């Protein structure tokens, strides 16, 4: 099977999963007790007004009609209207998406920059102080709830030291870059970075810790294999032995694990956003769940599900590329 066929097949599978996601989310809504009309209609509304509200929301139709309506709407990018704010759910959701993506990416970058060197040091200096430091850090890192870590960072850095802002994101990455490119104004980027640091560290710590652990144990396994000895025996510099050979082979299985842990990243982003008042998808979902704004909940869950599926297809393709034994079956 060629690489393209492989990706195509994974795409088709992905579409099936996405359809499953949509269906599940839809079911979830209809199984959850609580009539949305109660929230939308005024408290003193009579039956007539309530019926009218239900009809406006399309809730008077049989469930299967609503399901297919929703499905067809979705294909055209229509996720219905927010119950609370009379705006299309899709535009509300997509307005929030960049903030979340920026946060998740920044955290990922933080995680990769710190974790891989730490993991390598830990594995290659096994049982030395550096290893103990890295292992302890990673143990505490995977054991710390990130909302609490965020609050502690706010307490120490913002409240205590009085540096770095604690909340809201006054400017997005794209506007900040535009400001820089078109007006040669650096202020936007500086504001963006200042606001990004604490949330990115909060979200990135767990992943840093997790990847350190994975890298360490994977690399120790890998270092015990006999090709390492053979590579050293032929005179290859140690740097290359460690990075080109051992680390690379260590990362191959780790990449798949990271794909699976993407959900954890998104979940972490949701609560990090809440802690830092970050105007992203996370705060949107939490508020929507609080007021049972189902179109928003549904839409957000679907967007997250789609993101997960797409990234995992990319991960699989990368895995297949790095691991010559997978012949795209």
């Amino acid at each position: 099977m060629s690489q393209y066929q492989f990706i195509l097949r994974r795409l088709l599978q992905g579409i099936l999963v996405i359809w499953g996601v949509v269906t599940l989310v839809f079911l979830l809504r209809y199984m959850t007790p609580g009539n949305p009309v109660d929230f939308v209609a005024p408290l003193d509304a009579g039956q007539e007004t309530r019926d009218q509200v239900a009809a406006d929301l399309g809730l008077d139709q049989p469930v299967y009609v609503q399901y297919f309506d929703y499905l067809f709407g979705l294909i055209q990018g229509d996720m219905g209207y927010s119950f609370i704010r009379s705006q299309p759910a899709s535009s509300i959701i997509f307005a929030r998406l960049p903030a979340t993506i920026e946060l998740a990416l920044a955290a990922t970058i933080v995680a990769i920059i710190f974790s891989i060197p730490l993991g390598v040091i830990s594995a290659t200096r096994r049982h030395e102080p550096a290893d103990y430091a890295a292992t302890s850090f990673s143990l505490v890192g995977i054991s710390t709830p990130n909302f609490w870590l965020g609050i502690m960072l706010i307490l120490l850095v913002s409240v205590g030291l009085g540096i770095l802002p604690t909340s809201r994101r006054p400017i997005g990455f794209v506007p900040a870059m535009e400001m820089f490119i078109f007006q040669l104004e650096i202020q936007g980027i500086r504001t963006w970075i200042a606001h990004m640091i604490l949330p990115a560290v909060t979200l990135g710590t767990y992943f840093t810790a997790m990847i350190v652990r994975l890298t360490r144990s994977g690399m120790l396994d890998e270092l015990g294999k006999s090709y390492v000895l053979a590579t050293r025996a032929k005179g290859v510099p140690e740097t290359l032995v460690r990075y080109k050979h051992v680390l690379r082979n260590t990362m191959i299985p780790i990449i798949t694990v990271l794909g699976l842990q993407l959900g954890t990243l998104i979940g972490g982003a949701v609560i990090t956003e809440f802690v830092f008042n970050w105007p992203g998808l996370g705060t949107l979902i939490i508020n929507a769940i609080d007021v049972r704004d189902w179109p928003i909940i549904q839409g957000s869950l679907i967007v997250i599900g789609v993101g997960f599926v797409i990234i995992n297809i990319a991960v699989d393709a990368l895995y297949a590329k790095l691991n010559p034994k997978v012949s795209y079956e």
Partner: protein
Amino acid sequence: MISDRVKQSLKREFSRSVMAKIGLVLVLVVLLTAIFAPFIAPHDPTQQGLEESNIPPAGVTYTTEEFQMVDGERQTVETETRGSLDHPFGTDALGRDLFSRVLFGARTSLLVGLGGTAVAVGTGVGVGLVAGYFGGRVDDGLMRFADIMLAFPALVLALALVGFFRGSDYQAIAIPDPFVRAGLVDGMPESFVFPLGLTVVVGIVNWVWFARISRGEALSIRQEEYVKAAKSLGASDWTILRQHVLPNSLTPIIVLATIQVAAIILLESSLSFLGFSGTTLSWGFDIAQGRDYLGTSWWIASIPGLAIVVTVVGINLLGDWLRDALDPGLEGEHGGGM
């Protein structure tokens, strides 16, 4: 069901690993704390007292500055509060004793952690074994469903699911405290609020990991000679599953379950922090309370968080010990906490 060889390697790993010993001690401490909280706690964790609010932990002195109008002039009045051993960890904004709350919070965390894991094991292992053992369509169907579940972050799915129980009788149930009932202690809450809905939800969102593991095990055990032999002797599928497949896939399931307890405790604290748990006696909930007083009373948010870290570190250390001793090869194959 645990063979001597397994016991041996557990013992060997334990005696050689300092970390395993630390883990065991931490977990035992938290466990005993949770069980005997009413005996240890100096105060009723729910008892409020406004005149006792925001007292710092023992040994910490805390100064607040207030502006007051004295004789038409604006003056700064400094009030100094000193923490005492009466409230070792201080009190929160409503004057509740934080130390007592931390002790009782251990109950919530452990009960939800263990209960949620039990739910996850129950559903996940069942589904996984059936899928792996029967293979074919059943396997395909169940595993595609698992794929769909995986596409939802545990926290987000849990948030969406707690709606099921919101306002219902099952969101939280009150379990009478046996020690208070028996009259062994007084001045402690009569009953303990167990967030049942939350427990079920955190279990359900984590079943996939168990399904994946036990499916893999079932797939490989199915091929074993003794299973084929049992089958040819006319054993029913159900018997084979129960007598051969389940016992033999136990090792990785136990290791995963240990790690999952830690992950679920983190998840529980997140949901409590967001106010979706249905109980107000939880470390996550206290952190949320303390968040509003960061500028003045730092201890309210800090101390319960430390309790979470200590507990989860302990459990993770136990998990590492089991994994190193039993080596089921499940690096990273588990749900994260957040």
